[in-house]
């Protein structure tokens, strides 16, 4: 700051009111600085609001939910009309649905991204496919839920089941995975592709041996983001997989499951003891947040490791 001050003074002394050759000076320095600081502070405030929102949510859930969390809560099933016991079946159900969705969506999504980014020639077909993917990303999740109910549950006769829910979530996560994978593939420099082809590799060898390994950190991040989003969804599973209460842990793809979001929803709106189960609701929400944050953290750490290994 001090340096700038002296510099501006010395400039003034040299040039007087006008610049060199009497050219009119633009905005005075003091006003320019004021604009600078207004804009900068505005941007900083915007960024802070982001962080604050997350902090408030976490604090709110922690303050109200931490009392509910203990070993029993994490490892037993609910009983007494959900007013007692734990949420183990919901944790298991949520994980099964999320992982099941990724088993289906990850390979299809990555394969689509490879096709779109490496093989497809620009043209009408590509535009139509992209339009489809973008629109898929914009479909509200409850619409996916209804689609899953109509198509997987009823038309394909899967019933309300883990399988139907996982497939519905898979359809919903596809755009996320395709988008992330395409970004990752695009970030692989073309010089790698040229070098590989120049050495007599086929296109597929180039993709498999050079492009995919280089894009892997980004692709896996997309997969885990998809997984964590799928795990937190309520609407797509409420008609296709989730039930109010399942007496057993899921034993086959055709089992009905309990899930954390649906459990919270049911306790908070439809139970007989809404007020009495508040701590359980917050506790479940806290577990859900921890689960999702944990997955994202794992993705970040894994990606950092892969990057280190590559460079």
């Amino acid at each position: 700051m001090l340096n700038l001050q002296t510099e501006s003074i010395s400039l003034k002394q040299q040039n007087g009111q006008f610049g060199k050759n009497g050219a009119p000076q633009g905005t005075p320095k003091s006003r320019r600085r004021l604009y600078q600081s207004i804009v900068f502070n505005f941007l900083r405030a915007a960024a802070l609001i982001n962080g604050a929102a997350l902090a408030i949510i976490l604090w709110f859930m922690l303050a109200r939910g931490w009392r509910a969390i203990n070993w029993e809560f994490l490892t037993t099933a609910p009983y007494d009309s959900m007013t007692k016991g734990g949420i183990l079946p919901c944790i298991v159900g949520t994980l099964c649905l999320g992982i099941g969705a990724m088993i289906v969506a990850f390979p299809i999504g990555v394969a689509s991204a490879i096709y779109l980014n490496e093989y497809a020639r620009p043209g009408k077909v590509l535009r139509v496919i992209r339009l489809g993917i973008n629109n898929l990303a914009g479909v509200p999740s409850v619409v996916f839920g209804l689609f899953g109910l109509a198509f997987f549950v009823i038309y394909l006769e899967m019933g309300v089941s883990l399988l139907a829910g996982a497939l519905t979530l898979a359809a919903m996560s596809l755009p996320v995975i395709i988008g992330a994978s395409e970004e990752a593939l695009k970030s692989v420099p073309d010089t790698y592709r040229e070098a590989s082809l120049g050495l007599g590799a086929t296109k597929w060898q180039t993709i498999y041996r050079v492009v995919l390994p280089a894009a892997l950190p980004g692709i896996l991040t997309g997969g885990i983001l998809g997984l964590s989003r799928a795990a937190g969804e309520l609407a797509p599973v409420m008609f296709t997989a989730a039930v109010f209460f399942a007496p057993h842990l899921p034993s086959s793809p055709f089992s009905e499951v309990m899930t954390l979001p649906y459990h919270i929803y049911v306790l908070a709106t439809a139970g007989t003891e809404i007020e009495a189960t508040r701590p359980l609701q917050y506790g479940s929400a806290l577990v859900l947040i921890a689960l999702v944050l944990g997955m994202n953290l794992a993705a970040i750490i894994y990606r950092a490791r892969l990057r280190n290994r590559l460079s």
Partner: protein
Amino acid sequence: MTEPMKVSSKNLDFFYGPSQALYDVNLDFEQNKVTALIGPSGCGKSTFLRCINRMNDLIPIARVQGNLRIDDVDIYSPEVDVVDLRSRVGMVFQKPNPFPKTIFENVAYGLRVKGIKNKAYIASQVEKSLESAALLDEVKDRLHDSALGLSGGQQQRLCIARALAVEPEVLLMDEPASALDPVATQKIEELILQLKTTYTIIIVTHNMQQAARVSDVTAFFFMGKLIEADATETLFTKPRKQQTSDYITGRFG
């Protein structure tokens, strides 16, 4: 009786979509000689180089007309497999572009994609190639470290070693030293002079001193046309065309 030329282009035209980038290029390359392609930016010298290993196939709107032969076989005829062609015609690029893999795996890459599995052969070939690229002494203790940890000059010699490992007959170099410092450049130039005993080398360069130092034949390109090609010494001392003379004396470009 004249010996058949290693690489020979006849009436070669090249188009990017509607715009023509090369006009009727006729140029022959002798076996075990270094030919330098010089000319101002955008003159078509790199485009011509990339025709020789069909790297331009990657550009959807690119189109080639005319005749380009290697060992008297038209490389654009439908019977020629482009993957085979590229393992016979190696390429070194302007910017060093090693894969984000180990030094060893970089050099072994061309062999692996050929389907060669014999470990002893791969190891000996890697060593031989690094030796030929004058890099072995510097990296022999860290073959299994990442190639990205090497300096720019070392990376470029690694890229040369990588190209040599598949034992190409022709080596294309697209301004291989333009991203390097003078010391690394000198090493690359010394290397080129050694390599020409085994390979036919075609090098694109912006640097006329470099062309004079390393090449036997120099070809001058301007606005997509081959203006003049001659023995390097002749071209630089007694150019026949005015444009060549203007360019090499620094009057433009």
